[in-house]
């Protein structure tokens, strides 16, 4: 197997009773790639992502994450991945520092290392003065950046972002994507789901899921050519209109 492929899925399927949420999807993601995972609500992208994160076992098919099998090594996988959801998932009643310390602690990082790295991180984020403020007092954009930094604090190989920019203004979204590019440049693979088609353009490659299947998978430029479209929005609408499944 190619070592450069950090995520591979082959005929991956998840079936709930009579409902096939994810229908034989296959794809590969390379190291340091920003991989956009698109689809309308109910297309199955969250279910697919949960299988890759070890939160749910596939019904059939093969998948590896960081070179590890999702059936047999899901606990090992958890140490090598980071995860951020659209809820940002920080504790509002804890300070910035306490949040970092908690999340680093559950990844089993040593106290000294946590301390040094926290100081560095707070400087980078220009949050040093806010390190002892409660998270609930921070503006939304800061919370989002902090949540992303916390998700990659333990230096994972892959970070999964589930609609990470929901409810954030365009300027902050742009800044957030700069952070994603930095992480990717540092060798972290980024697997991101999004609703925003302008964000899809920022990805190296994107896949579009319709009714549990991957209908298209390529670079944004190639997809636009293939569907004779001027923007990703058009590509997405052409594909999403084929869907039979209701939300």
């Amino acid at each position: 197997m190619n070592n450069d492929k950090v995520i591979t899925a082959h005929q991956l399927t998840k079936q709930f009773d009579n409902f096939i949420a994810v229908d034989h999807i296959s794809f590969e993601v390379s190291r340091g790639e920003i991989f956009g995972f698109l689809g309308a609500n109910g297309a199955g992208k969250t279910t697919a992502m949960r299988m890759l994160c070890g939160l749910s076992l596939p019904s059939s098919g093969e998948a590896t994450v960081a070179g590890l099998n999702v059936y047999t090594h899901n606990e090992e996988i958890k140490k090598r991945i980071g995860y951020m959801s659209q809820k940002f998932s920080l504790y509002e009643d804890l300070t910035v520092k306490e949040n970092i310390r908690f999340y680093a602690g559950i990844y089993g990082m040593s106290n000294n290392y946590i301390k040094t790295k926290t100081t560095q991180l707070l400087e980078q984020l220009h949050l040093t003065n806010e390190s002892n403020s409660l998270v609930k007092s921070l503006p939304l954009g800061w919370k989002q950046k902090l949540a992303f930094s916390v998700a990659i604090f333990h230096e994972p190989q892959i970070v999964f972002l589930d609609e990470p920019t929901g409810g954030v203004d365009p300027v902050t979204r742009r800044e957030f994507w700069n952070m994603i590019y930095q992480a990717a440049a540092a060798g972290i693979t980024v697997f991101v789901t999004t609703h925003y088609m302008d964000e899809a353009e920022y990805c190296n490659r994107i896949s579009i899921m319709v009714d549990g299947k991957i209908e298209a998978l390529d670079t944004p430029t190639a997809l636009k050519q293939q569907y004779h479209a001027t923007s990703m929005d058009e590509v997405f609408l052409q594909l999403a209109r084929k869907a039979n499944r209701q939300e």
Partner: protein
Amino acid sequence: MQQLISFIRKELYHIWRDKKTMFILLGMPIVQIIIFGFALTNEVKNVKFAVLDYAKDNASQRLITALDASEYFDVTAVLQQPKAIEQAFKNGSIKMALVIPQAFEQELLHTNKAQIQCITDASDPNVANTIINYTNAIVGSYQQELQQQPLPYTIEVTNRMLYNPQLKGAYNFVPGVMAMVLLLVCTMMTAITIVKEKEIGTMEIMLVSPLQPLKIVIGKAIPYLALSIINIISILLLSVFVLEVPINGSLALLVGESILFILVSLALGLLISASAASQQAAMFVSLVGMFLPTIMLSGFMFPIENMPKPLQIVSNIVPAKWYFIIVKNVMIKGVGIEAVWKETIILTGMFLFFLSMAIRKFKIRLA
């Protein structure tokens, strides 16, 4: 281990930062003990009563004095006509009225039979009953004084109230309050905090992390276990030093059994959190599903023996019932494990059952 420490530290921050809830959790048992101890009491003392004495003779005076002299009754009014009785009841100045007919002494001495009437305010039936019993007892002892020589055959009943000779209500409600407080702190708070993590999305992050679910459960349980132990200590200190309820049995056994009950409550909280979708739902289920049955069916407020058969059967699945029996036996009667092993086994069984159900539900949700 370090993961667990991080988790517990975070839980302690949550508890510490939410000062209101913390004060309620720590203050509630103290307030409850004080309310039950001083305000809510079944004991009847210094009952105000009125006399309507048509006889006004030696015997009637002695009877009235005997009642007045006891700690249970105080004469507050001497009435002249029957109408005044109802007036006194209506304005609430008396709880009992004693009517002594004319020629009371004469009838008593010559026909050996006399009547008096005891009228009570039965709008509170329990108090009325107690008043009648006290009156009967005092009249009875006055009667015995009158008898110069005893009847040829008399059965003298000597009463002894075991374990609680002064019939203090505290002996009953201290165990009850312990059961209620532990259930509330452990079941409701664990359920709410776990559901809260689901709501704000942090549970998902933890499940994606290498932190095992078992550690999440233990990390949630330990802080509330600690809070509960503080509560047990404050309840016991208040009971012993303020309400003067003794701990007759082994303190170690009492604490051990309390920890067993805490574990049952924690497992229940976990089970609720696994099925409840929102914090409100978790709170509602805890209050209606746990708290009410505990008050109604544990035997703390209402004796289980007096309930209809179906309710008696239902009461068996209320964990607090068994804990209440254990605490009463160990604390008040001073018995050892040999007397409460059956209840202990039942609680242990409940703990294992709820825990395995909760773990199964947890797993189903993850699949």
